[in-house]
């Protein structure tokens, strides 16, 4: 992101993008691409196409940017587009890949000491395996609440559900994750 735009809020960049400023939209992409890729991976249950999904979502977001209210938060709206794109892909391609950690990949490629693998695998790998067994909606709502720290209203916007259902959905997702872990954590 250029030094001159770092101080600009998402709302400022959105308004500029709505007036045709492609550099402003590029700044939005740069600012939110990491989150978009992460949400794409969580929604799809795989990192394989996360970049493709995020890229497609940004293109769709640009097409719809004129209908976005700049006073609303940009990320929940973007996340909604990302998850819809990911779900559409999953529906058409029937992909069943799984999320994995960087440690697991490095272990496979020999880029990490075996002793470190033993420590990391016993904790995060078990949790990631449990996360993989959740539904996409459960993974997403937990990620939105715990990792992205979205409010209930923002989660509702990101999931496309009624705000009043977020608390119960979150509670059920949390319980299902606990069940998958066997209450070990």
């Amino acid at each position, binding site marked *: 992101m250029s030094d001159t735009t770092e101080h600009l809020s998402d709302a400022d960049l959105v308004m500029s993008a709505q007036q045709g400023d*492609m550099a402003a*939209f*590029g700044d939005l*992409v*740069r600012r939110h*691409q990491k989150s*978009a*890729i*992460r949400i794409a*991976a*969580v929604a799809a249950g795989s*990192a394989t196409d*996360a*970049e*493709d999904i995020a*890229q497609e979502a*940004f*293109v*769709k977001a*640009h*097409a*719809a940017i*004129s*209908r*976005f*209210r700049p006073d609303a938060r940009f990320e929940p*709206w973007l996340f*909604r*587009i990302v998850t*819809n*794109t990911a*779900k*559409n892909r999953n*529906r058409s391609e029937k992909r069943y890949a799984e*999320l*994995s*950690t*960087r*440690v*697991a990949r490095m272990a496979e490629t020999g880029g990490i000491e075996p002793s470190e693998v033993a420590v990391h695998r016993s*904790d*995060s790998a078990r*949790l*990631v395996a449990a*996360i993989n067994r959740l539904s996409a909606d459960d993974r997403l709502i937990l*990620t939105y609440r*715990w*990792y992205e720290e979205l409010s209930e*209203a923002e989660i*509702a*916007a990101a999931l*496309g*559900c*009624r*705000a009043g*259902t977020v608390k119960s959905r979150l509670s059920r997702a949390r319980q299902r*994750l*606990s069940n998958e*872990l066997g209450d070990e*954590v």
Partner: protein
Amino acid sequence: MNMLEQNFVSAIEELDLPEGDLVDSVLAALDPSVVVPFRRYRPTLKVALVAAAVVILALLAVPASRHAVAGLLGIGATEISMDSRSEDSRSQPSPGQPTVTIRESAEDLGELVDDVSAIDALPLLEMPDGVFDHPIRGRSFTWDASDELPALGDTVVGAVLSVRPVESFTSRKSVPFEVGVEAVVIDPAQAIVGYWLDGEHELATGGSDQPVLAQRVLLWVVEGFEFRLEVDVGREQAIALAKSVGEGTDLSPPG
């Protein structure tokens, strides 16, 4: 934050994710003057969809082929078949269960949703006057009749937009030959195609044998949701309204 939440956050943080920079490829995709192999774009799919719509359009233009093609028609959760009864026999009520009128249909959209404050307004239609949730029809938005939106039948409603997830065929439309079904392209950039039913026809929902009357309807599917717009306006205006229903607009049904 408790231990479970902390560990979850750590696990998400440790996910093996690509770290590429998307800015150049996104901007290239948005630049109409750039003709490069967009490595992740699939223009052939969109071209195929538009071509298919043109073929369907051409087939439906030939009256004799409509009946054969109609057996194949379906979009979202709606099957469409051509009604071969004559106009006289259609106007006679069916024995046992008469057709529900448009007014009665508009009054049976489901449970009224009280809090509409979180619903984004559609640019061309603005804030809906009513929102209803129905177990089969999904979420329906209504707009009162106005100069731009003539009343549907003898109701006070000018437009009804219903949205529901596509799971299986749960509705059947029976369309008179003189009304016809026309394949239309709603948004070529998004490869969104739909069907335009340019007149009064019957609709049966769920397991009900009692059909309801509907007027002009535009049907299309986006991202696994079926959209149904009932308006008494021309095709192009209906398509413009459909195109205004876009990403970021909270129209998904409950649940």
